[in-house]
């Protein structure tokens, strides 16, 4: 009944679901406060909003030209970017900074993005700061998107550029142009192949999975924060696999065959 080749995946899935249940139960205890490593890039976002206000320049938020995917295996990054959008919206509302959101090409996610921005301004008590004009849509194509985004940097200035989400070849141009225009770059993506661009071009970077941990932290929601601990359980599972695999390989067992069960 279980497909051959998916036993290990299923085991990992069961471990994570069990950990999820355990930690969700823990969140019911109001005194439970897990220790979470601080991520410096989170402070940089607040610093960047302050810089934007001082320089009278807007804050730019981008989740990538393809960052609105709701039906692909990258959907988790879309949701993570939305958590950051809510966070930056609240920060902008608190500090009085103008926020420009560069929308992804996937129109099906626009209501969710606009709703998140509107809700963030409303949460901060400044719903009037939500401006439809500052929700920018450039159509399809990474190269079209980068032209629109960089034109916005040039015309309106850039104080902070927060880029988090699904990025392809769109990020090198937009990040570097923001830097050239005097903006502060903070960002990251879960797509490992593009992390190099963020590491090179950002003043503060979220490396790979840090975007998930940081999104949980900025949400300040115990259930979201417990996700970081659930991730740690998964990592320990992988460590165990690595150690056991190394030992078994050392005694001559075919570990590759075991892993493909």
């Amino acid at each position: 009944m279980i497909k051959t080749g998916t036993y290990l995946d299923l085991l990992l899935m069961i471990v994570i679901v069990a950990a999820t249940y355990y930690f969700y139960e823990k969140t019911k205890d109001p005194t439970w406060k897990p220790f979470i490593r601080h991520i410096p890039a989170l402070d940089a976002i607040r610093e960047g909003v302050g810089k934007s206000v001082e320089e009278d320049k807007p804050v730019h938020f981008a989740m990538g030209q393809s960052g609105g995917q709701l039906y692909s295996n990258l959907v988790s990054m879309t949701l993570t970017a939305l958590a950051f959008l809510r966070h930056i919206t609240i920060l902008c509302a608190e500090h009085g900074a103008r926020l420009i959101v560069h929308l992804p090409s996937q129109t099906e996610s626009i209501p969710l993005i606009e709703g998140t921005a509107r809700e963030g301004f409303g949460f901060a008590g400044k719903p009037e700061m939500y401006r439809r004009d500052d929700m920018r849509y450039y159509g399809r194509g990474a190269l079209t998107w980068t032209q629109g985004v960089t034109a916005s940097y040039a015309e309106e200035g850039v104080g902070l550029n927060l880029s988090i989400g699904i990025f392809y070849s769109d990020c090198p141009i937009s990040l570097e142009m923001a830097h050239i225009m005097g903006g502060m770059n903070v960002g990251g993506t879960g797509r490992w192949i593009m992390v190099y661009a963020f590491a090179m071009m950002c003043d503060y970077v979220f490396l790979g999975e840090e975007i998930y941990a940081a999104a949980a932290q900025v949400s300040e929601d115990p259930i979201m924060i417990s996700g970081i601990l659930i991730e740690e359980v998964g990592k320990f599972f992988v460590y165990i696999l690595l150690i056991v695999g190394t030992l078994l390989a050392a005694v001559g067992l075919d570990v590759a065959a075991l892993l493909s069960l």
Partner: protein
Amino acid sequence: MAMFRREIPTAVLSFVGVVILLAFFTTLDIFETIKGVFTSWIPVISATSVGLGLIYMVYAQYMNYQRNKNLNNLIYLVVPLVFFVIFFGTALVVPGNISSDAYQWLYFHIYQNVGGVIYAVMFFTLASSAIRTMRVVTKDPSGALQFRLEAAALMFGGIIYTLRQIPLFQVYLPGIVGFGEWIMLVPNVGGGRAAVMAAALGAIVVGIRTLWGKEKTTTEVD
């Protein structure tokens, strides 16, 4: 109202997610069939998305022009529409449609060249940022040794691999080729795989949280 906006979408999402998982893990054909029906909607949504995008963009640009009637905003409104009419009209009207010489000319002589120019800009941006990468600078306020070592390792690896690519060094410093390859294939691949696994775990956790109906980003938005 909240039920229509939160509970029902969450229930539908969870149901579809569980079916997709069952299709992945089990050999039962029924789940594979239902998954096929669900996934067949992807091109429909994608195609609809293109149409909606055009309407959204035209509306946004039109409203922008209405609020601020200057030449730039007029150009932003008119130029995409002109190109849309030219491309779409050529594809519909000219015999041969998108295979016609006229459409192929538009594609290869306008669209592709503009794309090529932007790609070229990307390589300039990479070159200018690469210079910053080679500096041993950490912006971590603690200035901890760990971060200094990370910055130094990045610079060291970058320099070795860059020198390895230059024919002059390949000739006069042949050992650098093997060393550069080793950096690329051993520490780079090891670190990359660890990062991919960690990111995958993060994605799984977000996925399970969404199926559980606890993902704040999908339940808090009105």
